[in-house]
């Protein structure tokens, strides 16, 4: 009786396996194969081995994009989580304003990246909000063409990313705070530990799992960023904000270099998987050591 029951149960998996297999695993495998052909997207394609990958080594656009992607991710991960942690620890100490401010901080997360990018494209404009605000507080000297200068464009795009997701990081850290055993915090208070000391030796170690989740998430999210650079700069000025995703999009749908674009997407996958699994296993190891 139990045997038949288990067979029926296993059958429950079928619809999910079919959809996931056909629309996720199969395209994944086919992508890896296509990256080793000279396909233009049509039915005719020859196997060319590693030619597309070798071509990337000679393509400065690719090495630049890879560097931009990694730099962008590093800035976003550090600043977004730093700010999120700062907000979370301040909110945790102030139960009266906690709920309201947490919700307010989460509002940017709700809007779509495209819409966020639209709003900020105007705020960053030469006569837009940021410069006008700087004028208002008398800091004319800081006026800048934020998205038009190769030295600030990438960081400006990253700032929008940070603006949108800091509330998210904060919410996860706050969830970590709420899970802390109260006895421990009380004991610390009785021992007279407060402020920085309490944070450093009690809260920070207890937040280790939240940190792992936050860093891994923001890393994956920022490595595959697409809408922000697309809308804000479309890779410009002079390729200063070209990321791997933009190159994939342009090559695959811009015509001509289909297989090259697919090969780039495989590079993106490898980058995401390697960096995120390395980071999360390092952080897990750290969790166990603390």
């Amino acid at each position, binding site marked *: 009786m139990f045997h038949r029951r288990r067979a029926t149960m296993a059958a429950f998996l079928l619809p999910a396996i079919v959809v*996931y297999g056909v629309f996720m695993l199969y395209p994944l495998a086919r992508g890896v194969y296509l990256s080793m052909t000279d396909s233009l997207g049509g039915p005719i394609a020859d196997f060319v081995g590693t030619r597309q990958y070798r071509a990337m080594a000679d393509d400065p656009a690719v090495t630049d994009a890879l560097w931009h992607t990694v730099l962008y991710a590093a800035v976003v991960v550090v600043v977004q989580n730093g700010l999120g942690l700062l907000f979370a620890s301040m909110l945790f100490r102030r139960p009266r304003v906690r709920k309201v401010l947490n919700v307010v901080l989460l509002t940017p997360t709700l809007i779509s990246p495209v819409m966020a990018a639209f709003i900020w494209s105007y705020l960053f404009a030469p006569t837009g909000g940021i410069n006008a605000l700087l004028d208002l507080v008398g800091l004319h000297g800081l006026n800048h063409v934020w998205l038009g200068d190769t030295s600030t464009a990438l960081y400006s795009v990253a700032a929008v990313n940070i603006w949108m997701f800091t509330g998210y990081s904060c919410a996860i850290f706050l969830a970590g705070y709420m899970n802390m055993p109260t006895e421990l915090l009380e004991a610390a208070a009785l021992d007279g530990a407060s402020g920085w000391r309490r944070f450093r030796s009690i809260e920070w170690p207890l937040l280790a799992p939240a940190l792992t989740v936050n860093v891994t998430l923001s890393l994956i999210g920022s490595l595959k960023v697409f809408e922000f650079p697309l809308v804000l700069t479309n890779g410009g000025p002079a390729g200063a904000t070209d990321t791997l995703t933009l190159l994939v999009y342009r090559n695959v749908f811009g015509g001509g270099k289909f297989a090259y674009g697919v090969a780039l997407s495989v590079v993106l996958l490898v980058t995401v998987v390697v960096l995120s699994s390395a980071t999360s296993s390092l952080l897990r190891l750290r969790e166990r050591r603390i």
Partner: protein
Amino acid sequence: MTSDITSPPIETRPAHLGKRRVPTRPRTTSGTSRNPLRRLAGGLGTALLCLGTLLFVLPFLFTVVTSLRTAADVARSPLGIPHSLTLKNFSDAFSQIHYGRSTLNTLLITSLSCVVITVIGSLAAYPLARITQHWSTAVYRLFILGTSVPVFVVVAPLYLLMRDLNLLDNYAGVVLIYTALNLPVAVFFYTSFIRGIPADLEEAAALDGCGAFRTFFTIILPLLRPVTSTLLTFVSLQIWNDLLVPLVFLQDPDKRTVMVNAYSFIDPHTVQPTTLFPAALLGVLPLLVIFVFFQRQVVAGMSAGAVKS
């Protein structure tokens, strides 16, 4: 607010830290003491905190106010006090991005995808949570692998596949793509939730001759409600706000979603903020309305969504 998350992404309490026991005493609020200097510092902190939060909503407020002003007024002073308010920008944007039609399209795609994801995701999670064998662990791992695969990696081969299956410009195609993309997170949510449900009840039902189907629908399914609402919040936000999938797979103007229409209508470098902002606001309006009503669930959902990329 975030403590009622059902599938916890975060485990705390490292063993050695939890051991130290101290007799509980009525506690004074842990951070602030009665010292007036301390209290002043605390108040200052709260003020700074509110100011910091305000900086995060300022772009929003600015967007709303600018949307309500006339173009000439904004040109005169971008940050100035509005002289007159108008709703004309909104009605213009409404017709230019074909708002009614595209909202319906987005709503249709989002809700259909949500239904399919929850149904087949919960069905799949049941055996994965209850059968402990090598093959089921392998299948589970295969699903979880999907959480770190960016859409970009599969977008080109998916395009070819959809073309071969005649599913380009077809809602079913987009729904299937969203289902495949979100199944990993659904399977993860449901499996970890079902593992937390004691199996006693199901065993009793099995002894009474209740088959797997009936057990699932009468015992498991009703228990899944909290995790489903969390999952739905997370998944519907992703789908509603997505640009790439509808941009690539729905080219028929009548089938486009809000995000695609807004994206193709607006060129941020030439368009005025008074046309740009209302379009941006209209795009997120349905979500903001839902957020106001389901605040609690949304916040819980987003923190629990932490497991996904």
